[in-house]
């Protein structure tokens, strides 16, 4: 009999999702607010349970599920994002008739991501990937009256479906060459893949499949439209959470299963990382929609994290894994702050209702919503890598590892990119603090302020006291080497 305690977080999340779906049917829109608190509680419980199982290393269900430092670290990332999103969505879903669907989708998406983090078998990995993807497809198009939301969801779905097919195709080649879908077994029979030209085809297909979720250029086409069109809380889930699912899957698949093909995929990731960070930053400079700008900056950040695949030293992997958690707080928080602004514009009917997240909506935000403006400033400075924030520590470890490995050129490119990014982040700060406000002061609803403060706490804690997080990330990195 398996020890199900190790899967307690997943079970709690799944059960909470099902319960919400079930009892939501019997509730009126006004009382449905409770569901948000219920979801938050469930995620919180799962979070606590996950930290309980830190340090265990075991496999379950004939080796298909692996509980190790890597999986637990990423579960922490996903649950943290899910927590922030659930809290903020309490306001977003106020008086909505579809609250139960929203929360159960968020929870199922989280569940999918968590299972991906633990997957040690291609079949399970694919199923969990699809679970998370389908839930987020639906969430992206949650505003049925909003054409932008629908456009974003449609694009996301079509590109996502194609990339799933590519991924499955890649998996089938790997299976064909090695005769197994277990990641451990593939690693043992790696020579079969390395000697066979099919191995190369499989690598290309898998990179394309995961690259879509990680939003690496050129598989990023869906990301700006979807991040901009989706409800901001969902963009937060997509950018901060579901993107990391691509990374944890890629970490396991490439670094463990396909380690024998390292020269091939390392070259590919080198090009992808450099192109992605540069493209993301350059395009972000000219954006006037803040959510779109955050989307491109999210590309750039994915490019930085992808450096971990290029440098491949323990330090680099620690940095990359640490970066995913830092990015979850920074980007998650930034999207929630954008959500608060969109909420302000749509309820006040003062600004551009077509593009409520336009830069102009942020004019004088320091006076209209001081807390949001302050925290947004912290988030964007963290994204730019200004100390003492999580973003600085993450870049510090990751970029320095490139120097350690003798890849000075890569560190130089990353650092120059980082400097370029400061330009558009600083512009947002200028709008918030230096331009006159267009409207009166607004009282921020509690759920938004709670979610924003949670993310800020994460960003600052990781920046000021990074030791425990680095320790966890290092444990997680050890799994991969």
């Amino acid at each position, binding site marked *: 009999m398996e020890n199900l305690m190790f899967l307690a977080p997943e079970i709690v999340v799944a059960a909470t999702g099902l319960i919400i779906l079930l009892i939501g049917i019997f509730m009126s829109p006004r009382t449905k607010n409770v569901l948000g608190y219920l979801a938050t509680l469930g995620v919180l419980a799962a979070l606590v349970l996950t930290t309980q199982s830190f340090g265990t290393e075991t496999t379950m269900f004939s080796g298909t599920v692996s509980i190790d430092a890597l999986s637990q670290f990423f579960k922490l990332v996903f649950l943290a994002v899910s927590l922030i999103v659930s809290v903020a969505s309490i306001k977003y879903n106020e008086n909505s008739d579809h609250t139960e669907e929203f929360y159960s989708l968020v929870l199922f998406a989280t569940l999918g991501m968590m299972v991906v983090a633990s997957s040690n078998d291609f079949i399970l990995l694919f199923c969990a990937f699809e679970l998370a993807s389908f839930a987020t497809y639906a969430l992206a198009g949650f505003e049925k009256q909003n054409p932008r939301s629908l456009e974003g969801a449609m694009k996301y779905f079509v590109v996502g479906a194609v990339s799933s097919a590519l991924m499955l195709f890649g998996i089938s080649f790997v299976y064909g060459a090695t005769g197994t879908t277990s990641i451990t077994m593939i690693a043992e029979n790696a020579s079969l893949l390395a000697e066979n030209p099919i191995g190369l085809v499989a690598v290309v297909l898998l990179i394309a499949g995961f690259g879509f979720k990680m939003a690496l250029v050129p598989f990023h086409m869906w990301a700006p439209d979807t991040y901009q069109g989706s409800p901001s809380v969902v963009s937060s889930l997509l950018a901060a959470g579901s993107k990391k699912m691509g990374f944890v899957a890629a970490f396991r698949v490439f670094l463990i299963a396909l380690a024998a093909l390292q020269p091939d995929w390392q070259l590919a990731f080198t090009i992808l990382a450099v192109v992605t960070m540069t493209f993301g930053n350059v395009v972000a400079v000219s954006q006037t929609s803040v959510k779109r700008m955050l989307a491109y900056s999210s590309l750039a950040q994915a490019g930085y994290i992808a450096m971990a695949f290029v440098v491949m030293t323990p330090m680099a992997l620690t940095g990359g894994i640490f970066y995913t958690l830092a990015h979850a707080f920074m980007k998650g928080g930034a999207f929630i702050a954008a959500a608060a602004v969109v909420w302000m514009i749509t309820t006040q009917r003062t600004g551009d209702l077509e593009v409520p997240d336009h830069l102009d909506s942020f004019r004088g935000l320091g006076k209209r919503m001081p807390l949001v403006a302050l925290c947004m400033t912290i988030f964007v400075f963290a994204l730019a890598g200004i100390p*003492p924030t999580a973003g600085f520590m993450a870049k*510090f470890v990751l970029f320095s590892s490139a120097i350690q490995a003798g890849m000075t050129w890569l560190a*130089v490119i990353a650092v120059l990119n980082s400097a370029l990014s400061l330009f558009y982040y600083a512009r947002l700060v200028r709008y918030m603090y230096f331009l006159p406000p267009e409207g009166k002061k607004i009282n921020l609803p509690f759920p938004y302020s709670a979610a924003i403060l949670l993310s800020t706490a994460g960003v600052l804690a990781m920046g000021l006291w*990074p030791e425990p997080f680095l320790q966890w990330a290092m444990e997680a990195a050890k799994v991969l080497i």
Partner: protein
Amino acid sequence: MLPVASLLILVPLIFAVVTFFTKTKDQAAGLAFLGSVVTLGLTLYAYLNFDSSTATMQFFDSIEWIPLLGANYSVGIDGISMPLILLNAIVIPFLILYSWKEDREAPNRFYGLILTMQAAVIGVFVALDFLVFYIFWELTLIPLFFMVNIWGGEKRAHASYKFFIYTHVASLIMLLGIFGLFYASWQQTGVPTFDIRELVAQFQFFESGLLRDAIFLSIIFGFLAKLPTFPFHSWLPDAYTEAPTAGSVLFILLKIGGYGLFRISLPMLSNTGNPKFMITMLGLLGAFSIVYGALVALRQKDLKRMIAYSSLSHMGYVLLGSAGLVALSISGAMFQQFSHGLIMSILFMSAGVIQSNTGTRIINNLGGLAKTMPKLTVVMMLGFMASLGLPGLTGFIAEFLVLAFSYANLPGFVLLALLTIVITAGYHLWAMQRAMFGVYNEKLGDVRDINPLQVFSMGVIALLVLYFGLNPSPVLNMMITNSEAIASLASLATALGV
């Protein structure tokens, strides 16, 4: 014994946070003044308990921070940092008094940022760990960026972005150098550490000369751009000129570039792959900055811009004295930093008053101001005289030490700098003559003189310029102690090959 080094960061920072929440201008300015006076008190306490006869670290404090990377929160004060902390602690309270009567938007943020800046700059001076050092180094950018961007002149947006991005890129390149140093030393000793003194000491043991050169150059690039020196100075005239007066003074107090030279670069210099080349390069840049700054200052129409370029010219002495690499020339460079901070505060404050009371800074539109602004004229005259190097004032001592003792190693560059003294005297006197003396320009109408608070604050700084000019030993002694340590750290004479 109080943990002064940490308190010097914490006190202004706490007062800054509280100041951000004040409602009225008097509250904000009063609280900020209180904070800066407490900081001054702490600094004086540190100064009085300071032992000038030793180059070792005093008031040392260390707390474990990130053991995984070998980073600690460690701070301390020695003869390199003490005078610069003193400079900051002295000028800031008077800066707050000076600007008390000015009307401006959001005074709470204005004064809060001044104190944040003070905390960040002192943080750089006391940090003994590269990670802490870099964090404070970057933190200095933010208050200055806001200072220029919110309260600056017409082209403030351009100036603030240029400053921010320019010096941020330079800092990032410096960060790459720090990474290189960190990993090379880790490889060497097997133990990760970010301790500045330890890493600087390890530097000489790295095998590859190319690596040592790369590390040295990328770190010093950050310092040179911050100093600034020709040709990395292009952010300076815009930022100094567009900043509000308090911002310009904060820029002047930002002596972290020169500090980095003394603390980190000079001890490394003789161990680089090609020390002779490095010394020539630094000397050349220093001499060039002196000449270039003076020549460009000569043709400026805007008084504040002229002062900005003269600042560039003066910072050249810091570099030249450092490159001279004997104890007394380095002391001269250190003293130039201290003296320049005091003198330039007076000059920028004067230019600020002229701008606000007459409405213009164009030198040719002024004229005969001595008639209506006698008090300003006295203080400003003293500042200008100190700036052009009149004996008896601080500027003379600094420049004399630099020129006299760098001559041994860099005669050509010293001669170049000596010739420039004529130009320096020229543009100072010419500007003074056109703006303050001669026939009063009636178009200016009735011009008010400086207010009593401004008389007091500028007067005290002017008196300090006079005092340290006549009796430099209270700060010069500790500088000499530390420069001797730097100069003797490695057998510099052999490295020089002279």
